[in-house]
């Protein structure tokens, strides 16, 4: 099965890198959609089908924590599995994002193999 992925990050170059790494890793992605912050992500999610969300935490307008809260409050979106991808690898932040419903947490730096493995694990955990 090919998956539809939404990459949420305020850095266009990081979004481009993640899209490229997803492709290089061999992960079966049908499409990689992009959003620059949580608000844009919600707009995409309310208009298109998405199988898994990769989100950064620190973003302007709406950060990753608020995005998680909004997803949890939406009946149609709360079942979409979320993988957090962040430079912040502290235990407090990981615990907070897990508490908000993230099924995976990948700290930067990460290799293509690590990204693929976490995406597959999160999709399986969310099924």
């Amino acid at each position, binding site marked *: 099965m090919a998956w539809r992925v939404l990459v949420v990050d305020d*850095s266009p*170059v*990081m979004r*481009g*890198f993640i899209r*490229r790494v997803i492709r290089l890793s061999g992960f079966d992605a049908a499409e990689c959609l992009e959003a620059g912050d949580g608000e844009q992500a919600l707009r995409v999610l309310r208009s298109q089908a998405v199988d898994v969300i990769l989100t950064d935490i*620190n973003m302007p307008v709406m950060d990753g924590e608020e995005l998680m809260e909004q997803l949890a409050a939406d009946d149609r979106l709360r079942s979409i599995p979320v993988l957090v991808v*962040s*430079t*912040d*690898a*502290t*235990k*407090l*932040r990981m615990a907070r994002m897990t508490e908000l419903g993230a099924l995976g947490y990948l*700290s*930067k*730096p*990460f*290799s293509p193999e*690590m990204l693929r493995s976490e995406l597959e694990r999160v999709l399986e955990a969310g099924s």
Partner: protein
Amino acid sequence: MIALDRQVLLQTLDAAVNETMEAMFFDAAAPVREGECCAGADMVTVCLWFHDAVDGEFMLAAPLPTAMALASGFMGVDNEQVQRRDAEQIACELANIICGSALSRLEPSSELRLSSPMATPRACATGDDVIYQHYQLLDGCLSVSLRID
């Protein structure tokens, strides 16, 4: 507040730089203890600040050709397509990842707050209160520095 053990900070920086270069830039970084990577005329230098459990500043500098080669690899485009602005953006991403990785190792149980990295015309940080390290890459060199207030 972490103890300012110079050796621990250097080892932590080495680990963060190595892991970042290998995993995300498909490059290798060897520490050069006596090297000097910041002496060139045309440098890309970026800085960011961190605060909470530890306060301070992180800087990353590379000669423009090195920064452009790193950007080319990260973006997956030919070197000729990379502009200075791209090199600065990628240097900001690199600084963010290395700094976050280093501080998460130093203080895994604390909160981490990083400012957005930005390009700066300032020279590399040096001085007694600054931990700095130079790295030889496959194609060029890189310097990083960490000042903890």
